[in-house]
């Protein structure tokens, strides 16, 4: 991909940094820019972008890691189902270490062995076809990026009349979470770096409400360091000119209208419901649930599990505040000493894209 190589030239990046410096002197106050997506958090950490920013520009990390925001009771439910007869649990690898209320999938695997990591929901479906005497449960997490793949997998399962495949549905939607953050009184966000791969699916229009209702510019950004630097530059320019628009920096991948086929299949298979986010609580209309005609694939319908509906927060873990961009891992008394990737207390330390994990790896003082 030679045309991408071209972007990576250090001269180009240096020039934009210089421009960011210059623009920052025109700002009337300190600004907080939130990168919503955990993958952006990783890139910002790995390339030291946070530290390179002028003093009055603060990059804060948002709730954009589906692993981290899956609540304790999701893990608890998965574990309860894994104890039923003839069940195999399949999951994305990141979920294995996430602490539930009492245990994690990794610990339970050591006990019963019936929990398996897959790369794709299609792999989980294949396991179902090859193990007809078992019920295969796929732990369905992820944002709009992932929801269409799961919807497609369910449709394939239905076409093929596969009866032993189920999902435990914990899928979530990003724009309602962004709006929820802005509606809280004590969050202080001046601009959003919007998640590129969520936007591939949803396009630019869902962010318009945010710019119009809250007077906040939004830039959809790619994942190369230059993408992020350019996005910061665009946000600053808009803040200085008091223009509150949605700008698509990641045009090479994100179409204005999003991916229509993918959007359609989400609507076809899922209903929108209220959903619990770890550390944040219930956010209205921020989750997905299988529609009635697909409920034969719903693990919660197949297996009744009796666990507490709402999760309680882990003692002293401030993941919730971190997710909202109000605090950083350095504000957590457990960070590093007690909580680290080997022994994660909160979810933000588990997923490699978790804010705490990214800070542990890249931003230690």
């Amino acid at each position, binding site marked *: 991909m030679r*045309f*991408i190589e*071209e972007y990576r030239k250090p001269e*180009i990046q240096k*020039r934009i940094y210089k421009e960011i410096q210059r623009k920052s002197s025109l700002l009337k106050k300190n600004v907080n820019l939130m990168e919503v997506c955990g993958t952006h958090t990783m890139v910002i950490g790995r390339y030291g972008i946070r530290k390179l920013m002028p003093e009055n520009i603060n990059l804060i990390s948002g709730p954009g890691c589906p692993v981290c925001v899956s609540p304790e009771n999701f893990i608890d439910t998965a574990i309860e189902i894994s104890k039923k007869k003839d069940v195999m649990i399949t999951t994305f690898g*990141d979920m294995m270490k996430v602490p539930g209320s009492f245990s994690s999938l990794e610990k339970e695997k050591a006990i019963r062995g019936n929990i398996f990591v897959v*790369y794709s929901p299609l792999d989980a479906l294949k396991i179902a076809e090859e193990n007809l005497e078992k019920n295969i449960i796929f732990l369905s997490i*992820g944002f709009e990026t992932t929801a269409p793949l799961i919807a497609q997998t369910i449709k394939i399962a239905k076409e093929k009349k596969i009866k032993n495949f189920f999902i435990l549905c914990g899928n979530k939607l990003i724009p309602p979470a962004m709006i929820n953050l802005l509606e809280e009184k004590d969050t202080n966000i001046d601009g959003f770096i919007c998640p590129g791969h969520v936007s591939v*699916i949803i396009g630019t229009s869902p962010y318009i409400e945010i710019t119009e209702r809250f007077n906040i510019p939004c830039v959809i950004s790619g994942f190369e360091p230059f993408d992020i630097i*350019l996005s910061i530059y665009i946000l600053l320019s808009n803040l200085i000119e008091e223009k509150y628009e949605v700008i698509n920096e990641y045009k090479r991948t994100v179409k204005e209208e999003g991916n229509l086929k993918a959007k359609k299949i989400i609507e076809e298979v899922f209903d929108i419901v209220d959903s619990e986010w770890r550390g944040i609580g219930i956010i209205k209309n921020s989750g997905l649930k299988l529609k009635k005609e697909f409920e034969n694939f719903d693990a919660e319908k197949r297996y009744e599990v009796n666990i507490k509906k709402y999760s309680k927060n882990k003692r002293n873990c401030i993941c919730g505040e971190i997710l909202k961009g109000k605090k950083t891992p350095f504000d957590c008394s457990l960070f590093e000493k007690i909580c680290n990737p080997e022994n994660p207390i909160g979810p933000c330390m588990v997923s490699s894209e978790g804010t705490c994990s990214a800070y542990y790896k890249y931003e230690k003082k």
Partner: protein
Amino acid sequence: MCLAIPMKVEKVEKDFAYVSIGNVKRKVNISFVENVKKGDYLIVHAGFAIEKLDKKKAIETLKILKEIK
């Protein structure tokens, strides 16, 4: 977790494409993307192509980058 990487198409077969990046090869579902051809770059996430990389648009962004003085 929304990590998705551009991978190059080597072969197309109905709903699937064989793609590669470096030494990694995968078979991915392409039902969300139209007109997939050999040599295209697909954005791949968890076994599916979620979009095709648009070279013309990529070059547009590059121009903007170069124009920032």
